[in-house]
């Protein structure tokens, strides 16, 4: 049987390499700091799409609350950066003084230390996912109910942050006045340095995710997407596997949250907005949830399109996006990457010696394809 090029591991890794080489070439051509910052922001969105692809595409866990990890981490990072602008003589961020707070709240104290602050920004959402995830998955909440529960949790956090005005500055959010200072240097968000940091972390998370999907763990996760009960009877602790993949996906979103604040020096409850979290799902859905790179490209295409085509016609753009998303769900459940898979499959089938994957009786007459990889 001629193999579909789409499933060829070497071809896949080659495409990933080409993609990242293209990204690496961007700073050589773009000198405008503003543009570079925008591209880096897209990289953050790509990371979010990647995280959605992992848990929804591979694990079948439709997470409509990925803003939880993204937002919590973003707040952690913003608090860290805010505290870099404070000192012992002036420990109170201006907005707290405006809200007539006299003392730094205890949960802001750890953020004096930059390293510790960033660690907290990553650990808190990760722990949240471990607890919330095991709560859901051990109760065998599944399918659409996970979507509703993550949505409810997201809304809950949104209202909480909005409500804690004196500690979070409510709807106005936190805007750290200076760029992140780390390892003895300032990370100017409009510099190539910032771009490379995002690039490196996107590369790292993508390669790690790709390897993960190819491992035995990844295979079990894909199996439980189809039939969790069957997987249970094979001896796997399904809730544990689901919690782990959900948490990994949350960790990636948390990294994205930190980077995002590093790039835009701002965070507000809008990062917990339901619409934003569902937008992440739309990126992955249109690009192709079963393909990590497909999801990444989906985010880049849609956010890029929004910036360049949509600025004047934002309403029309969103209308078209909604319509396009409906079409994709209806006709291309595997997104644009799935379309490519189909096309390559047809190409493979048209080659000689073909034997399409049609059901045949037992005892097939030829023994091609018994060995793999």
């Amino acid at each position, binding site marked *: 049987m001629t193999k579909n090029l789409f499933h060829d591991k070497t071809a896949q890794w080659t495409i990933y390499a080409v993609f990242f080489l293209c990204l690496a070439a961007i700073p050589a051509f773009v000198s405008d700091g503003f543009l570079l910052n925008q591209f880096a922001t897209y990289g953050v969105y790509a990371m979010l799409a990647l995280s959605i692809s992992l848990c929804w595409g591979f694990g079948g866990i439709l997470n409509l609350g990925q803003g939880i990890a993204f937002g919590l981490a973003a707040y952690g990072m913003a608090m860290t950066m805010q505290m870099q602008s404070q000192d012992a003589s002036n420990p109170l961020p201006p907005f707290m003084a405006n809200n007539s707070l006299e003392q730094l709240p205890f949960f802001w104290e750890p953020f004096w230390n930059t390293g510790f602050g960033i660690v907290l920004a990553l650990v808190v959402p990760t722990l949240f996912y471990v607890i919330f995830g095991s*709560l859901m998955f051990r109760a065998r909440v599944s399918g659409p109910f996970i979507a509703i529960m993550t949505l409810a949790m997201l809304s809950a*956090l949104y*209202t909480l942050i909005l409500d804690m005005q004196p500690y979070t500055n409510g709807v106005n959010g936190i805007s750290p006045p200076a760029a992140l200072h780390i390892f003895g240097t300032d990370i100017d968000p409009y510099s190539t340095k910032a771009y490379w940091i995002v690039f490196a972390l996107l590369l790292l998370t993508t390669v790690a995710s790709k390897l993960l999907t190819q491992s035995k763990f990844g295979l079990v996760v894909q199996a439980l997407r189809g039939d969790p009960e069957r997987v249970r009877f094979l001896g796997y602790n399904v809730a544990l596997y689901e919690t782990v993949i959900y948490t990994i996906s949350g960790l990636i979103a948390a990294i994205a949250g930190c980077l995002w604040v590093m790039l835009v020096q701002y965070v507000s409850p809008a990062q917990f907005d339901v619409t934003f979290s569902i937008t992440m799902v739309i990126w992955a859905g249109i690009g192709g949830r079963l393909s990590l790179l497909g999801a990444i490209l989906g985010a880049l295409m849609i956010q890029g399109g929004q910036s360049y085509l949509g600025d004047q016609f934002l309403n029309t753009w969103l209308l078209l996006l909604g319509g396009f998303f409906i079409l994709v769900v209806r006709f291309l459940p595997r997104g644009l990457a799935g379309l490519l898979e189909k096309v390559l499959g047809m190409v493979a089938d048209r080659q000689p010696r073909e034997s399409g994957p049609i059901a045949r009786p037992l005892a097939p007459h030829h023994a091609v394809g018994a060995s793999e990889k």
Partner: protein
Amino acid sequence: MPHIEFASVVNALILGLSIASIWLIAAIGLTIIYGTVGVINMAHGEFLMLGAYTSYVLQSFFGLPFLLCLPASFIVVAAIGLVIERGLIRYLYNRPLDTLLATWGVSLVLMQGVRILFGSDPKYVSVPEIFQSNVEFGFVSLSVFRIFVFGFTAAVVAGTVYLFYRTRFGMQVRAVMQNKEMAASFGINADRVYMTTFAIGAGLAGMAGCLFGVLAIVLPTMGTAYVVQAFLVVVVGGGTLVGSVAASGLTGELQSIFAMLSNDTFARFLLYVLIVVFLRFRPRGLFAVAKARR
């Protein structure tokens, strides 16, 4: 613990009933659609919004009295729901997650479509003078319109119960819910049942939207404010009518009591967290329907 006065508790309880009736009327269309058709309709909030806009248009441009706007919103939004069901939803009945996503796309399209047509500035639906006054119940003061909403919700629930438990159509719906194939073999057209139910659900949402147009301002984004609550009512209730009534009563009262002890926003946070914890122990809701065996 602050000293709680008897009066404020009664006040909170009555306010809770009012909140419950608002959440229930928002959720009832969703309940029918989810309970019968099994579709998680993310465009539900936009159906509400369309109902509000329908009332606004009919009232401002055609001078239709408010009380006639209610049935008119039902008809218009039911028609829109019908089109969406025929054009999209019916192809996705065996793909629950995809329906959820597709209806999200629908919601985006509806919201942006309305924004392009009517702009982003707020519109208003006005009500007759009599609704604008307040009524005193001992130490509690409530607007007449809120009482009207409560009564109207009760009437809608009663009507829906009648439709689903006392009519031939209702019997067909329940037959299809229990066993689609068996119902089909008795000559019930499941496709038609789904279609009609979806349209009725959409129409009920439209009618609720007409009320919300009065309670709040009419905006393209107004639906999103109600949709999460509506979902939680349905999920906590388990997708049945009686479940939704119980769930909205419970959540409405809790919201009101929490709000009395802290404030509205924090009360909502607490309520959502409680619901998530509740669902962990009863993932199928208050009134769970038994799961089919493998």
